[in-house]
């Protein structure tokens, strides 16, 4: 198998690494996983059964094109100036059902599911978020990077706050 084909093992390794970086608040390493022009998208729900499909005409929970915007999110999250973010909640991401759907020369698409448990020490409250991930990965200088990440949050009644570290 050629080295520029995305294997299931390589896909899982990247997703697990992303989860570990979020769970351990290593946000600058987390940002390094994305391409500069990444599309990072968590659609809203249009009705009981379907999410919004067109981010330009319909609302998303989060939509950014460009890693630069994720850097803003990280800056806010770690600034110590956001009462919603300090102290940071404790989170664990569990990623499973990782499936490589397509793999071509230096590019691949991946599906996975996630569960994120979050404990907010300030309120003594535990919440759980779950959903699906759709990734587009590209090979850059020998490393797989995230060119697109779509997060479908299935339990979308948001308990006060959901930030990039709990999805």
């Amino acid at each position, binding site marked *: 198998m050629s080295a520029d084909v995305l294997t299931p093992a390589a896909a899982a390794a990247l997703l697990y690494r992303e989860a570990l970086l979020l769970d351990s608040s290593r946000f600058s390493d987390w940002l390094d996983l994305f391409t500069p022009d990444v599309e990072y998208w*968590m*659609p*809203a*729900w*249009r*009705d*009981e059964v379907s999410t*919004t499909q067109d*981010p*330009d*005409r*319909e*609302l*998303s*929970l*989060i*939509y*950014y*094109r*460009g890693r*630069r*915007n994720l850097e*803003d*999110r990280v*800056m*806010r999250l770690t*600034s110590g*100036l*956001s*009462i*919603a*973010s300090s102290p940071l909640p404790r989170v664990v991401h569990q990623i499973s059902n990782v499936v490589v759907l397509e793999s071509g020369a230096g590019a691949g698409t991946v599906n996975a599911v996630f569960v994120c448990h979050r404990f907010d020490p*300030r*309120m003594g*409250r535990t919440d759980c978020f779950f959903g699906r991930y759709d990734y587009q990965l590209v090979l850059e200088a020998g490393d797989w990077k995230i060119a697109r990440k779509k997060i479908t949050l299935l339990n*979308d*009644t*948001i*308990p*006060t*706050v*959901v*930030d990039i570290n709990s*999805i």
Partner: protein
Amino acid sequence: MKLADLIDDRPEAGIFRVSRAIFTDARVFEAEMRTIFEGGWVFLGLESQAPGPHDFFTTHAGRVPILVQRDETGALGGFVNSCPHKGARIALVRQGHARQHICPYHSWSFDSAGRNKAVKWKRAGCYSDAFLQDDQGLARLPAFGSYRGFVFGSLSANVPTLDEYLGEARKLLDLVADQSDDGLELVPGQVTFTYAANWKLQLENCSDAYHFTSAHPSYIRVLERRQQEMSADVVASVWENSDYWKEETQGIGGGSFSFENGHVLNWGVFGVTPAIPLYERAAELADRFGPAKRDWMFNMRNLTIFPNLQVAENASSQLRIIRPIAPDRTEMQTWCIAPKGESAQARRQRIRQYEDFFNPTGMATPDDTIAYENCQRGFAGKVAPWLQGYARGMTASVPGGNRFSDKIDLHPARSVLADSQLCDETLYHSYYRAWAQRMAGEFGA
């Protein structure tokens, strides 16, 4: 418990205080549900949520599930969303299209005008005459109506007309509705969130200019970074283009208006800037309505129609419905509200600004809702029961309007003109005076 223990309103002494108990006490909450949310006008939704015949949407009035639907002629009706047979909800989704609703429990069916179409196995049912003479249709809301596409209903018939209830605040709904000849729509994608605190914290926060630089410094820092870079890669925000909220800004930058029945507006000057998606229609709107009204459409405006509707036009445009669940739990239903027919580019700009600022997954709202939860925890302290957050602006509040309201022939009950640091708190008095009026029958004076 007496009303005087809950609200201490003595204008002649320069005192307005609110007891922490109004945010925590279960008897107060029960009385609020009965007299305010289930005993008077509440906002239900937009007409555009049910655009054609047989279209419907569901919502709540207090704890009561409500069905708003158009009949075959297109006439809107408001009903209790509950089967008269055993009480089950008959419409189970937020929005849809149905000539008939069939109760999922025993298959009684109802047309889009709320009439009973069939009682299953009626002839075989050995019903009494008394039953057969009864009306098996859906219960209609005793009061129901809409203004400029905003739909309201009341579970009590003992209310003023909707026009009387909204009063002068109608002109502020006009500023929203007149942005397009085709009216308003909700951008697809509803966002619902909850917080562990009282509903009145949301009521107040919308009108609270005092918290912005305190609760949102992390967002302000993001804005400053974007402003320095001027990069096309970042989400543009109208706040970057406005100085009215900055503490070093001099002169009159906005203020507040209070109206009868608890409706309030706080506002600030944004100016007619391309950072606002409506900019593409700026010239057209000035031709149509005159520059003064056009300029008001571009002002930062946070409007509350008491008790449960807020339309916030600041970073973008948001419509919120406040739904109290318990004294310490509230559900917020939120939408991006937009003029129909705006360009694809303006719509995209509006949506991006909205997500960044208003979403519970964005960079500003969570710092508000977490603050509400901190307040709710703090309200447990009743050693000094009176809250002091209703005093700013006490000596600036004047009866009637001012030169800004005069420009659009708006006649508020009271007004405050403010520089960036005044941050009026007397507009909350309007909430609590309306609240006290409604609650008077529940508690002795």
